[in-house]
């Protein structure tokens, strides 16, 4: 493809990558699987980019493709993990569509900021636990704590961080202020 097409794809992909990654994660709840599926989806989107109707929502298109990839992936995998029904996955897709990328990026920035205000040991715990798939197990062994205890700590930190993000964006007048410009609400 031409450089122009490459740039256009890149630009569009970058605009939606946070939401798309979030959507795939919401279906798989495993960051490694999410990363793999995210990559797969990116490649498919790129291959099929010439079929994309630029008048339509790139996010919807990407989400549709990623959902099928996730479904195929989950069907092939024999896992005891619990997954939502496809009906709910479609509903969630709509909900992701209603959000917007700018807000996702703002939330991401707020997260980085909020992390700075965690106690150092909490920040280190989060980073260590989430940097690798076996992070919780490793940390539990290193600290000689149960994995449940680590999960409990992580849950406490997550709630603090999420509330901090909400407060930060709310104070900045953002949290409830950025509807999706791509929604039909625009004339």
């Amino acid at each position, binding site marked *: 493809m031409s*450089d122009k097409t490459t740039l256009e794809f890149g630009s569009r992909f970058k605009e939606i990558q946070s939401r798309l990654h979030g959507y795939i994660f919401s279906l798989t709840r495993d960051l490694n699987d999410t990363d793999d599926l995210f990559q797969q989806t990116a490649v498919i989107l790129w291959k099929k980019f010439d079929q994309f109707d630029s008048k339509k929502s790139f996010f919807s298109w990407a989400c549709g493709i990623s959902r099928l990839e996730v479904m195929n992936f989950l069907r092939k995998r024999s896992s005891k993990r619990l997954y939502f029904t496809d009906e709910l996955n479609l509903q969630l897709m709509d909900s992701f569509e209603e959000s917007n990328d700018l807000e996702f990026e703002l939330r991401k920035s707020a997260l980085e900021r909020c992390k700075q205000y965690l106690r150092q040991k909490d920040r280190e715990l989060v980073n260590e636990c989430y940097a690798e798939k076996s992070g919780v197990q490793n940390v539990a062994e290193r600290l000689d704590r149960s994995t449940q205890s680590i999960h409990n700590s992580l849950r406490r930190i997550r709630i603090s961080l999420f509330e901090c993000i909400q407060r*930060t964006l709310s104070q900045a007048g953002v949290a409830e202020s950025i509807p999706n410009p791509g929604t039909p609400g625009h004339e």
Partner: protein
Amino acid sequence: MSDSGNSRNQDNACSFPEFENVSEADWDLVDRFLSNQSNDEEAKQLEVRLKNDPLLRAFFVCYSSFFSDLQMSARGQFAGESALQKVFDRQTEGNQRSTNSAVKIDESEDSTSKGVGFNGLVNGEVTVAPRTSKSHRGTDGDHNCGIELHRKKHGNQRVFACLSIFAALLVGLVLGFWIPWDQADSTPEPIAWLVNAHDCQWAGGFVPAANMQANDHLDLESGLVQIRFVSGVDVLIEGPSELILLSNMSARLNRGKVSVKVPRSMTGFEIYSPQGRVLDLGTEFGVTVSDDGLTDVLVFDGEVDAFAGNDKSKPIRLLENQSASISESKIDTDKAVSNDFVRRISDATKLRPKTQTRQTTSIVFDGSNSDGICDKNGHPIGFISRLPGTGDQLHQNDTNLVVDVQSEVLRLTTTRSDINRQAGLATGEYFGFKLSEFGFTGEEDFSVTVEIPNIPNLESFGQVGLYCGAKSDQVIRGGFIKWGKTGLSPNTLFMVNNDGGIDSDSNKVGLLNAGIDLQLTLSRIDNKFSLTAENLTDGGSASLSIRHPEYLDRQNEIHIGVFGANPFSDVRKTVSIRKFTINVWK
């Protein structure tokens, strides 16, 4: 996709107040599910809850994104980069490109290099630099932009495309202030406002909000900023500087350079530094703090007390034109301090046209206009053309425009449109002139000014102002905007680039209360764009400049004019335009 339970079509998915209505039990269900802690029963329960509760779904969207962000954050945003690397790895496998391409990659000679770092999409150019996998985590903040091309020993230059962490450029536009963790439940009053901002680069992309609180940390990498304290004290900060606001009468300069002007009617403003303190006694003075904390002070007018070290040290009084160098243990009044402070924004930014021959055209709305776009009553409004890409579906007699001859104003009612992401532009109100009609050939300095009396309080990112562009997706615009959807905060001055349909370089300063008479001027003088807002009611002013819109440099036809939009709301606002003036200097 049907969703009978979805009542959120017009709402934002992550609306904060609504989340207060998410029960603790639901929150717990979501958290346990996303952290793979749920049992069968909990998962089924959550599915039922999610299917029937759109608010919970919205919460789930935000919370799962937060979950992935948290993990991605720990992994240094590896996923996005890796995904795109894969895409472009595939592309380049069979795709040798010219080294003259606009998009190039530096192929490392290190055979273990696999990662592609997406370093920034700026000015339409992209840069990519391969990184080893291990290098990802440490380079997240490195937004190196431009074009890079390096010949390696194998001489095999390949071309990759890359993408930026584009949002990083957008992020800087909002996260204005931080409420410290232990104070986060209270809502402190603002103690200072950003009044002027020129060519600012903020460390970490965190742009201060127009209104700032105690403990706000201003880390200015470059540019010039003026803040005004509630007390009336003006502080002008030159980048690189790091200033922490302490109260409405004090700030701490960790490094950098500031000039301080205290109103004559008051004293007591303090600048703290790592090695001392300067106490104002009714004055104007400058302070520089070097990286090692050494503090220089120079009094321009009035007098100050300089303190070395802590508060117990005996001060040295400095009078007009006197200076001192403050260290932890002493104050040296013999050392000459360089008088190179910027004391007024205008000193550095108010560039004057090189030529004095000026063609001025003004439009008033007294019924004398005989051509141009027609208002809803068929009266020509004097504006001739629309910004290409906008207004295609507006009526010939534009129902959003009314010339009020008696009041001699043009009333513009905003429509739901947004230059950012190019939404609703067929009915967008962006009208004005081609600059070529005023003798502009591409090189001349120019300015456009609009007077808007009695400005309304806009809602939900509503915006009114001036534009200058080639078309709807190559335009710089600025004016007043309501930053946020709710609340009673006033409008603020903003300026933003749009090259390709997405806003970038957004910046905002000042507070513009509803009811004031406002004069906006968008100018390009000596190839520098700036926006000035003059409050005609109380005489105040604010100004902004942002990254130069180089995408306009190549354009031989530039449109300028007025716009009004309510991008995220159906609440339309009407503004009055009293006078519109174009200056072109030849």
